[in-house]
């Protein structure tokens, strides 16, 4: 029994490792085919050939591709992701700064997405064809179709520049920039750890707008999915049976219909969260948010494979991690899978 569990675990770990290795290999070899010379990120367009060749050699780019890949994987396993060519910093150091910034934003966004999206989806299903349903549809449609870039800019003009309700681009006002010690990389949590409520509220005032705009997109998606899952359940015969049993309409919805869509809903939410964690490049750009998405795209445009590979690895781990977590939640939520 225990042996089979171990075997199962080993198989799972093996498949995760293979997936990640495959992902890295694919990115690595595709990256090397890009028509961009990564050396130029360091030496610039004006450099002569000797300078170029010196750096080319220093970076090990003169070695065969498979050797380069082997050396990369070897270093990576010891925790060394190398230097990001386009920032000059160690990739690992960069990531400890940009990744928490994105996780903080994505978490804020998903809370809004789930907190509003799920109830809205349920209400839209229950009151199908009513005003609530129409409102939900319009809200959802706008969320799908408005570019985040435009929404961000409009949001900034209205809530930051005109009304002054929220902080501007960036994670904090300049005045607070050095007020807290970086513990976790999450501004809000670090401020609370330092017991500095001024900084905390300032951080919140900066995250609320980009977070809400990203959250709006997630909300649109989650509410539409919730609605369709609910409608599917509500058309089932057991719903009638439950009503006949004497349960109130809302009790049926809550205890039967909603409960039955939880498994599907968890998948939808996990995917929405993973999508947010990949980084929302445009939102990050408008809000000068030093996050993961912006980092990944800047690395890609500079042909900086050290940065790109580390980012791809993280995205891979996020997806696999969330998949595993979803599997686990399935077991908790759906007795049939136990």
């Amino acid at each position: 029994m225990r042996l089979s569990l171990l075997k199962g675990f080993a198989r799972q770990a093996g498949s995760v490792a293979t997936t990640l290795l495959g992902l890295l290999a694919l990115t690595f070899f595709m990256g090397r085919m890009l028509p961009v010379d990564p050396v130029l990120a360091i030496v610039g367009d004006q450099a002569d050939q000797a300078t170029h060749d010196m750096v080319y050699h220093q970076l090990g780019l003169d070695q065969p591709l498979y050797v380069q890949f082997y050396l990369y994987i070897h270093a990576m396993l010891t925790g060394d992701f190398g230097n990001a060519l386009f920032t000059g910093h160690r990739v690992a150091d960069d990531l400890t700064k940009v990744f928490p910034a994105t996780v903080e934003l994505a978490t804020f966004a998903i809370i809004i997405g789930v907190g509003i999206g799920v109830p809205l989806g349920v209400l839209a299903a229950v009151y199908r064809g009513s005003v609530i349903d129409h409102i939900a549809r319009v809200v959802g449609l706008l969320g799908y179709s408005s570019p985040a870039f435009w929404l961000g800019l409009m949001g900034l003009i209205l809530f930051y520049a005109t009304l002054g309700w929220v902080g501007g681009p960036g994670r904090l006002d300049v005045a607070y920039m050095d007020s807290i010690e970086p513990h976790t990389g999450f501004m809000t949590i670090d401020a609370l750890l330092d017991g500095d409520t001024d900084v905390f509220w300032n951080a919140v005032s900066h995250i609320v707008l980009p977070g809400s705009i990203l959250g709006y997109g997630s909300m649109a998606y989650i509410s539409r999915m919730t609605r369709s899952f609910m409608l599917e359940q509500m058309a089932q015969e057991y719903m009638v049976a439950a009503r006949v049993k004497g349960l109130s309409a809302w009790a049926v919805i809550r205890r039967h219909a909603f409960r039955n869509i939880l498994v599907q809903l968890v998948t939808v939410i996990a995917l929405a969260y993973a999508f947010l964690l990949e980084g929302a490049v445009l939102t990050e750009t408008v809000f000068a948010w030093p996050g993961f998405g912006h980092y990944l795209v800047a690395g890609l445009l500079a042909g900086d494979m050290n940065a790109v590979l580390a980012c791809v690895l993280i995205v891979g781990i996020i997806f696999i991690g969330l998949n595993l977590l979803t599997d686990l939640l399935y077991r908790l939520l759906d007795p049939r899978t136990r």
Partner: protein
Amino acid sequence: MSRLFMARAFYAAIASVVLLLSPATGQAATPRDALIIAWNLDALITFDPAQIGEVNGADIIINNVCTTLVRYDPNDVTKIIPGTAESWSSSPDGLTLTFKLRSDLKFPDGTPATAEDAAWSLQRAVLLGFFSSSNLTEWGFNKDQITDQIQAADDHTVVLKLSKPYPAPLLLSAAFANNNVAAILSKAVGLKNAKTTDGKSDLGNAFFKTGPVCVGPYHVTRWDANDVVVLERNDNYFGPKPAMRRIIIRHVPESSAQRLLLEKGDIDVARLLNTDDLKALESNKDIHIEQTLQQGMQYLALNTNDPILGNPKVREAIRYLIDYDGLKDTILPYKGVPRADLVPEGAFGALNRKEGQPFSLDLAKAKQLLTEAGYPDGFSKKMILSANDISPAIAQHIATNAAKVGIKLELEQMADANLFTRGRNRDFEIQLVGWYAGYPDGNAMVSRHATNPDPRMEAKLVGLPVWRTGWQSTDINAKAEAARLEQDPEKRAAMYRDIQLYMIHNGPMAYIYQVIRPIAYRTSVKGFEIGPFRVNYESATK
């Protein structure tokens, strides 16, 4: 009950958002003793003066963090004024250049800075061999002899032995004024923190990358990639004490966001605004827009190895397809001044504005030149260009005019790194690209855009844009070398004039405009020194 539960959940979610919004009404203005600048910090990769090869890094470091041996006079960049060196002299044979350093130079920690530090800093730039080293190696300094060529004679005297008697004003302008290699770094700190790989010392490169220990008004105390750079005042600086205790440069990559921050007063200076945002700020009396003509040119590089573009008449025809006057009013406001000459206005020896821009849109003339060249019906060519900024608009504009005389230009936009790679590999027919001259002297452009010692592919002189086009004139090579050694300023200027007048019609480039750098700042900021090369913060107050 259940209905209430759902409703409560819904409203609670909305309420939590509203609640989060409410305490955030207060706005913090920028601190009195700090200058807050918004910029794009994407390109920053190093602060080591020996390694810096891009514009933003040089802008931050030169004369803000590392004062150079000599400087340009802010009112006339062709004149040289003292920096960390209080005086300089040339030997009668012109083969020795001596700098006398100030006696009150100190690093931020209070340690005195000496001629030994200055000599070591120059030597290491050559020894490390990064791109900046060419600022010295093109004047005969080389790795093998550098420790003999540049030496400290005593605590305050640096002596440089030259291989040829280059005119002192040219040499000072090119290598020692506003040039990152002319910084004084701490030798002790550099050697203490040096890392050795494969038996080769990095002379403190990895250490200085994130913050050089230099003689200058500020020092770098923080640099988070793609986020922020903080400069702190150096209280041991020899010059007048800067009013601003800190300079904070924030990464705000989006123009509209910079504009909002500036209007709101959350930043003092915006350095990356697009034309629409600048136009919108024009009427705001709290904001001043300073437009500075830079020593940078945007141009079409025409690959002369191509049989069609190799014909000088075809290249001349293309110059008549650029609507310089039309561009001035449409695409170029806040961006540039039309100019067809390779040497930018303001440099020593440059043609004046009128002479430097003899072309105008003339389809009939272009057609006539094409007919003379044997292409009366035109031809098809590909043009590669950056997807950023106004490049696509400029390219489209030229392609539209070209189509009228039968030249079909296929435009291909790409990321800058890709564009540069293609240029250096000579992998283009026509490339729309830019180049910044390192110093305000005709030689800066002539030596890169006109002088080509070896046009063969295998020569790989990739750092020379003229090599990338495959063009060569041995006559121009000889004239440029003679000008480099001419001691009489008037004669030297006349020689550059001669070269420019030839290149403007026969060279491999069609220059389009000289770059303007617009900087918008709140009028509460005073004394902010903005020059064609550098922006200096030490004199700023608010």
